[in-house]
Every structure is written in structure tokens, then in C-alpha cells.
């Protein structure tokens, strides 16, 4: 099993870099995953990561990207709830990459 090291802790990830245990997540885990993907996390990234964590808390699933886009538009406004903006923040796909940073499983219904 692969691991990443965050604050001296060994954390298990799967072959695609997603957390094995969702409860292992803390903010520095996202920072470390972003560093591996060469993404620098700013406030805009955190808005989406926090949004995803809240969504998961409520619905127990990681939303598919078009569901995410729609939900972000509703909560954070149209200028953020569009795929161009989200892809700029998360070049490997807002569903997959943002969910990974947020410690969630791969989104359900992303193909």
C-alpha cells in the first residue's frame, strides 16, 4: 500500500492517490497532495475543497463533476460554478482532483 507522509504521519493512499481511510484527512493532507500534483492551493481551491467536504458530510457521496458545478453555482455563484473556472483550479478535473485533495473517494458517476 502506498503512503504519503504528512507532518511526520504515514497516511495510506490507493494507487490513484486517494485516501484509503477518509478519517485520516486533515488540511495538511490536502496541501501535501497538492504539492505532489504541483498545484498551489489558494483560497479559491479551499472554497471548493471545503464545499466538497460539506457535500460529502450531507449526502455521503462525492458528487459527479456536473453535479458539483451546479451545486457550486448555487452556493458560491455562477462565476465559480462553471467548468472553465473549476478546471483552471483543478487541472486534472474538478471532480477527481478536488475530491482527492478533500480526502473523499473518487466521485460517483464520473466517467
Amino acid at each position, binding site marked *: 500500500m502506498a503512503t504519503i507522509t504528512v507532518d511526520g504521519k504515514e497516511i495510506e493512499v490507493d494507487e490513484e492517490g486517494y485516501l484509503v481511510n477518509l478519517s485520516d484527512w486533515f488540511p495538511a493532507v490536502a496541501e501535501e497532495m497538492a504539492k505532489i500534483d504541483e498545484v498551489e492551493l489558494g483560497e479559491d481551491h479551499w472554497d471548493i475543497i471545503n464545499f466538497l467536504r460539506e457535500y460529502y458530510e450531507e449526502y*455521503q*457521496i462525492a458528487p*459527479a463533476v456536473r*453535479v458539483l458545478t*451546479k451545486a457550486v453555482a448555487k452556493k458560491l455563484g455562477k462565476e465559480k460554478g462553471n467548468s472553465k473556472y473549476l478546471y483552471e483550479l483543478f487541472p486534472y478535473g474538478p471532480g477527481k482532483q478536488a475530491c482527492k485533495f478533500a480526502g473523499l473517494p473518487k466521485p460517483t458517476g464520473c466517467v
Partner: protein
Amino acid sequence: MSDDIKKFMFVNTKAPYGTVYALESLEVVLISAAFDQDVSLAFCDDGVFQITKNQNTEGSGMKNFSPAYKALGDYDINKLYVEKESLEERGLTLDNLMDLTYEDEDDDWAEKPSIKLVTRAELADLMDQQDVVISS
């Protein structure tokens, strides 16, 4: 409706925990939403327990995935047929089921109920109208 859109109905007949059928079916449903098909769900027999309120899986060691049914509206899946006889046979009413809703794009995003109570005969008719029926 264009020719490449098919009517899919996922029929749920089993209690939510104890087997993986309910969870697996829900995952297939959420994935199917990505293909822009006409998707509906039916709940009959013990399947009606899948969408009951206040599920508590503590002690069973299984994850309570019932909140995920509330996301169906976000996935544009808003036809959830519940068989009336199955509810009654189990001493349940609509009040025992979760409030599952969707926002109607064509009606200024008004929140509307996704659950429709149908009789056994009506459900049979609905099944007849489908291109594909997948039951679990």
C-alpha cells in the same frame, strides 16, 4: 425525445442493509445519470425500507448511505415510484419516508417531491413502458 434516449427503471426490492444490492444499485443509478438517459426508480417489497427516514446503522457495522438518496435530485433523477401495497403491508406511510425532492428547472427551480405513490397495477404499467428494467 431523441432516439438514443432510453427509459431505464431500476427496481429496488431488498432491505438496505444485510446485502449489498441496495447500495450497488444506487451507485449504478448515479453512474447512469451521466449518460443522459430517462432514469426512474421503483421501490417495492422490502425495497421501500431503503428510503425510510432516520436510518441508524450503528451496531451493524455498515455505513448509513441513505443520505445519498437525497442527492438524486441533483443528478436529475426525480421519478421515484413507491408501491402503495408494499408500504401498507409493512405498516408504513409516506410520512415514514425521507423527503426526497428536486428543483424543477422548467418551473423557476421550484422544489418538488420526487416520490410518487403508485399502486401495484400502476407500477406494472410503468414497467411495461420501459426500454430497460433492472431489478435488485
